[in-house]
């Protein structure tokens, strides 16, 4: 193996590899085909969204969307849910992750198993179980937004945990906390003024990912009967033709904005490839 490798180096320096040429052609071909598949629906949607007025291209569909009071109320509602989910999720997961890092590393297996659960229990099954469990006393929570937020925390938990975990792994948590405490800081000071500022990039990316999951979410919102942005979009799709296309573009830009921003942030921390998937 080693001989072959050395051999490969010396031969390589003598001339170009014979298979590189056709391979590059194939690469470009697949890339072009893939780009077509990805871009054509986006372009078609954009074009469709401009046809709100007969015969001319105009932004009239967007004007309709933004002028609709329902748009504003449902979007605001989802935004509030996203903020609550981010707050609750971080409040729950940051201390847990720190505890796992500092005190009980063995519990990592347990937490990571829980991180797989939202995959095993798809949203539609989760909401079914939540309704059955919380629709009668003593825990009649179905009419409370708290249940929706709790469901969203479950959905975004794997992503939040992975982001926070990657953030903690990138800093030397033990040394930092011990240094802070030997300088006389209590747990509160250590947590808020040492640990949190050091993982702020990870927290921001967790927040953005959660935002992109929650804002357009349909399944939980529709089954728990909340006037959220996802159900509103679905309703629009039933009645109108061009406005849904405009909504799709708006929603894509939101997703694009939050994910691109998040990936830009996360490039500076170690967690590579830890943000995959979504809620469909």
């Amino acid at each position, binding site marked *: 193996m080693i001989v072959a490798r050395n051999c490969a180096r010396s031969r390589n320096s003598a001339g170009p590899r014979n298979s590189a040429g056709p391979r590059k052609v194939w690469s470009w071909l697949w890339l072009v085909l893939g780009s077509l598949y990805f871009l054509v629906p986006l372009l078609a949607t954009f074009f469709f969204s401009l046809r709100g007025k007969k015969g001319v291209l105009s932004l009239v569909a967007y004007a309709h969307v933004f002028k609709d009071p329902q748009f504003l109320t449902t979007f605001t509602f989802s935004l509030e849910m996203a903020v609550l989910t981010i707050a609750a999720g971080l409040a729950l997961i940051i201390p847990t992750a720190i505890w796992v890092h500092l005190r009980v590393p063995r519990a990592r297996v347990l937490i990571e198993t829980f991180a797989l659960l939202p995959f095993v*229990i798809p949203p539609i099954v989760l909401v079914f179980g939540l309704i*059955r469990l919380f629709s009668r006393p003593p825990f009649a929570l179905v009419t409370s937004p708290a249940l929706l937020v709790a469901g969203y925390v479950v959905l975004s938990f794997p992503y939040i945990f992975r982001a926070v975990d990657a953030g903690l792994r990138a800093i030397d948590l033990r040394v930092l906390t011990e240094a802070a405490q030997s300088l006389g800081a209590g747990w509160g000071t250590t947590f808020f003024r040492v640990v949190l500022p050091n993982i702020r990039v990870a927290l921001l990316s967790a927040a953005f990912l959660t935002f992109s999951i929650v804002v357009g979410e349909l399944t939980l919102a529709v089954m728990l009967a909340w006037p959220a942005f996802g159900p509103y979009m679905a309703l629009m799709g039933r009645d109108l033709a061009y406005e849904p296309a405009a909504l799709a573009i708006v929603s894509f830009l939101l997703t694009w904005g939050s994910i691109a921003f998040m990936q830009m942030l996360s490039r500076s921390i170690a967690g590579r490839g830890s943000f995959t998937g*979504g809620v469909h």
Partner: protein
Amino acid sequence: MGLAPFLLFALAFMLLPAGAILFGSFQDAKGAFTFLNVAHLFRPGILRSYLLTIEVSLVTALGGAVFGFLLAYAVTQGGLPKTVRGFLVTFSGVASNFAGVPLAFAFISTLGRVGLVTVILKEAFGISLYDAGFNLYSFWGLSLAYLYFQLPLMILIITPALDGLRKEWREACENLGASPLQYWRHVALPILAPSLLSSVILLFGNAFGAYATAYALTGGFINLVPIQIGAQIRGDVLHDPNLGYALALGMVVIMTLSILGYTRLQKRASRFTRS
């Protein structure tokens, strides 16, 4: 101790709801124990629904895996500029999260009855997709839409594995006189096999649990298991709520099996993946 809040939360909002489904599956309308609900899952109508869901998931998992692999290979080892790779990975991050209602709208605007591509094909080339049997709101249309989040997910999870494929291995093969086919047959594929297989399983589960996209695209008129469960929650269409729980339990069982397969294979794959 410090884990108590989290464990309580997980118990209340993950384990107990799942338990509620489990218990409901083995109860009749009066709350007595029964195997009847689970037995009813094998009725032709429900079995067909499971089979359709499995077919959609399998087709989009395999399609996503093959094309995602080719794209990921093109940008990692195919000699394309580095910026292309960065762009594709960022885009995949967005696209794998672009699902549900907006994704359905995008495909309706593209391949719906008056969608852009449908109209262009008809007016410019005289090809009528819908006369040829294509329907966006049925199996192949739905699969095409699912691919939009399956393919990017594949790109995201297979790229690290492809990075683990060292250039020296190919060069060694070439120098020892192996053809590209032999290189793939004896070196690259055996190394990538666990990653590829586990990706297919993950993609399968990803499609299997999807509800929002199918609901928004077909308006609930496609016989997928998630859609059936949704209809059951909204109103008692099966005339038997406990059958609904059994339906959900069946999903959880299939998802559990796939995640077990996934984690096992990932462990094997991690030997070769540079993390």
